[in-house]
């Protein structure tokens, strides 16, 4: 894969994660700590989290074509690294109450769900593209056979 293409992917993932983290923090916050109020600084947290969570994407980088098995293994490693990044953020942050196991498990679960959703969205996007290509392929083969 070209490095330029890979960096663009990282950027797209960053924006997608920023949005999803904002939604996730909003929903989980309303459940676990609905009375809390924050300053403007809190607006930056989804962006910082997204930037940190994008870094593990580097494990997907490869000059040669990865086999499907390698992709799955690297994606699993990426998920573990993302979870580790989130845990480091959570345990070093004074805002997140890591003393409550429910909060820690909720964080792990949220990250997992976001990761899976991001991959499902990507798969759905490719499925739509594949359907279009199959239609074009049929026309192409009819025309040239």
């Amino acid at each position, binding site marked *: 894969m070209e490095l330029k293409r890979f960096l663009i*992917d990282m950027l797209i993932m960053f924006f997608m994660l920023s949005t999803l983290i904002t939604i996730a923090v909003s929903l989980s916050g309303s459940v676990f700590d609905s009375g809390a109020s924050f300053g403007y600084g809190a607006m930056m947290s989804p962006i910082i989290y997204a930037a940190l969570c994008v870094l593990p994407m580097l494990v997907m980088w490869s000059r040669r074509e990865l086999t*499907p098995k390698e992709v799955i293994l690297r994606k699993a490693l990426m998920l573990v690294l993302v979870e580790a990044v989130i845990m480091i953020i959570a345990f070093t942050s004074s805002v997140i109450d890591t003393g409550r196991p429910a909060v820690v498990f909720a964080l792990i679960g949220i990250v997992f769900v976001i990761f899976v959703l991001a991959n499902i969205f990507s798969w759905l996007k490719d499925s739509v593209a594949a359907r279009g290509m199959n239609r074009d*392929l049929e026309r192409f083969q009819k025309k040239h056979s």
Partner: protein
Amino acid sequence: MLVEVERIDKDSKEVVLIRCHEVTEEVREIETFVKMRHGSLSGTLDAKQYEIPVTDVYYIESVEGKTFLYTSDRVFETSYRIYELEEMLKSRYFLRTSKAMLINLMKIQSIQPALNGRFTAVLSSGEKIIISRSYVKALKAALKGE
């Protein structure tokens, strides 16, 4: 090189003969061109030389500096380089799908999404070929006839 065209009667077999002092790259290119016009590629299998019709080739792969032609049931080694074949077979509906692979678009049964923005081409032989995401744009354009 002197080029001569000789008309022969209908009963005689048509032949393109290259008489040369040495088989140079230029001679090889002419030979390749003539064979391609005829619609076949040279390949070896078990030390025997074959002329494989281009329409029988499903895909072409380069592995460790060697190039292989895949038909429905056999694999031939060829002396051509993948980039040479890419150029030669453009008009024969072959397209690059990864750094080391050329695929015959007429042999693709369907295209499926694969992981990481890539696609899989399912060939009519049942084999599955990965389409690298760098080549997806070119594939889409080719299928649309652009």
